[in-house]
Structures are given as structure tokens and as C-alpha cells.
């Protein structure tokens, strides 16, 4: 084997080793779809007027219809509905969040208890 061929072979092998050992990345396959959540929450946080509230509500409505609803969406949408005096729908969504993500149960129950007082 010629010296040049040997060098090329070694380089190819080492490049392969580097790529396979360092660059391979498997992402979380359970990641959620968020639609326009980022922009809607950003706008609402800056100014909670009727335009931005409607924008956020529309985004939430789309997200809760997904097969895999992202965490926090049902609860925050429920809270938004409660603030709009839609008690039944609001509470139902907060309870749906507990059902989907039981880790939020203590927090949500505490909030629901304050409403009853």
C-alpha cells in the first residue's frame, strides 16, 4: 500500500469514528407540536388586550384538539376562560390538565380550592 493511500484510509476511518461517536444525536421522539404558542404567549405577556387574548385563545383551541396536547396548555387555557367568567369550561380544562399530567395536580387543586372559598 502506498503511503498516500494509507494516509487517506486512516483519515477516512478516523473521520468516521469522530462522526459516529460525537455527532450522532437522537432527539426526543415524544416532543410536542406547539403551533404559534410562542408568539401568542409573548404578545399576551406584553399586552393582555382583547386582540392578544383572542390570538392566545385561538392558539390554545388548536392545541387542545391535538392528539398529544402539550403540558400546561389545558390548564392555562382553562385559567383564561375562568378569567372570562366561563367557569364550567375553565374548570373542565384545568381538570383535564390533571388527567393528562398528574404532576400538576397539587398545584391545580390548590388553585381550584381557592376559587371555592
Amino acid at each position, binding site marked *: 500500500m502506498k503511503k498516500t493511500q494509507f494516509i487517506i484510509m486512516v483519515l477516512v476511518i478516523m473521520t468516521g469514528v469522530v462522526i459516529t461517536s460525537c455527532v450522532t444525536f437522537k432527539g426526543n421522539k415524544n416532543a410536542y407540536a406547539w403551533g404559534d404558542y410562542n408568539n401568542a404567549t*409573548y404578545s399576551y405577556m406584553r399586552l393582555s388586550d382583547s386582540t392578544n387574548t383572542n390570538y392566545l385563545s385561538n392558539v390554545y383551541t388548536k392545541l387542545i384538539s391535538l392528539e398529544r396536547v*402539550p403540558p400546561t396548555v389545558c390548564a*392555562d387555557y382553562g385559567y383564561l376562560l375562568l378569567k372570562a367568567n366561563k367557569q364550567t369550561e375553565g374548570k373542565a380544562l384545568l381538570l383535564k390538565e390533571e388527567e393528562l399530567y398528574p404532576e*400538576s395536580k397539587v*398545584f391545580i387543586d*390548590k388553585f381550584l380550592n381557592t376559587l371555592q372559598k
Partner: protein
Amino acid sequence: MKKIIITVLTIVTICSCASLPNRKEAYPKIYDEKPVSILIMPPINRTIDVEAKDAFYSTLTIPFAQKGYIPLPPMLAMDILKSESAYDAEMFANGSVKKFGELFGCDAVLFTTINRYQKKKISAKIIVEIEYTLKSTKTDEILFNRIGKLVYQPKSGNSNSLIGLAIDHAVNMLDVALTKKVFVARACNSASLDVLPEGKYSSLFLQDTAMEAGKNKFDASVSSVTGM
């Protein structure tokens, strides 16, 4: 000659892959405790940008949820924290967070500090620097800490003439003027939290221990950010 080449390449390979700790070595406590629910505190704002706090708060839910954690609902949490006089996270960052676990049932509390949130129009740059600290509500231990700094600077053209350079700069200034700081903040979150160990709802939960943890201080420059 062959021995020298092999030795050099082996050293390069080892240095490129083994110089940084893996996630298990860097963040052992998070693997021990396996926190799931996270209370995201309102950011601590060390900048003069009064909008930074609320704007940045809106960016934190998605990266933690995508990593397999369950953030407590941010809009509801924000209002509850305000009503409990806990809106200023500075008051709790250095103290015990166990009471948050007892009150809200969360496993960990996230503190973020915005050190820089600047748009520099003359030099056509946006600079964001954030510190992320995740504290256990069971032990008060720091489970994860990382500082991320991201500089957004649009690509310069290849103009050699003075007029060409002036046009490039004008285009860059316009680009920066149209880019919101919050876009850069989101990119900073993605880059800085990429090495956070995967949470319970991730398909990679407890399978990422050998993945590289990166440096504790992340510093990068990008020439494009998306609005999402």
C-alpha cells in the same frame, strides 16, 4: 511516518470527543432525583430593559416540556406568584425552595437571570446572556446550572469597496432592527438547555447519560434566528 500520523489522529480524536464530561458526570443529582414537575419562576432581570422579564418568561415553557419535564402552567403560576408576593425571584434564589415543593407539589424550581438583553443598532448585534439554575425542592441542591450567551449578528457580505461595506452594514442594521430580542432569547434557551438531561416524558429518559454535557458556560454567535 505511519506511527506519527496514527498517534496525531488518535490524540485529535480523543481530544475532540473526551475533553468534556458526559451528562451523568456533569449533572449527577438530576439523574438521582429524577425531577418531573418544574415551577418556572419569573426571571431575575439584571438589565435596564423593563420588558425583558415578562418577554423572557414566555420563552421558558417549551424548552422544558420538549425535554420531557412538566412545567407548571406559566400564566396561572405567574398570577399565583404575584398574589403570594413571590413575583421577585431574587428573594428566593439563594434561599430554601422546599416551601415551593410543599405548596405547589413541584419537584424543582427554575431560576433564570437575564444578565444581558441588548440590541446594538450601530454595531448591528443582539446580545442575550442568561443563567439557568434548577434547584431541587426536596434537597435545595442545584440540579442544573448553565450560563448561555448568544450573539446574533447578520452575515456580512463580501464587499471590498467602501460603498459595498456601507450597504452591507445598512442591511445588517435593518436586519437587527427587525429581529426581536425574544427570538435570540429563544435560540439561547435551545442552545443552552440542549444538554439538560432528558425528563420522564422524553423518549430518551435515562438513556442520555453518555451524551456530552458541554461547557458550563455556553457562548456562541449566530447569523440567523427564526421567529418561532
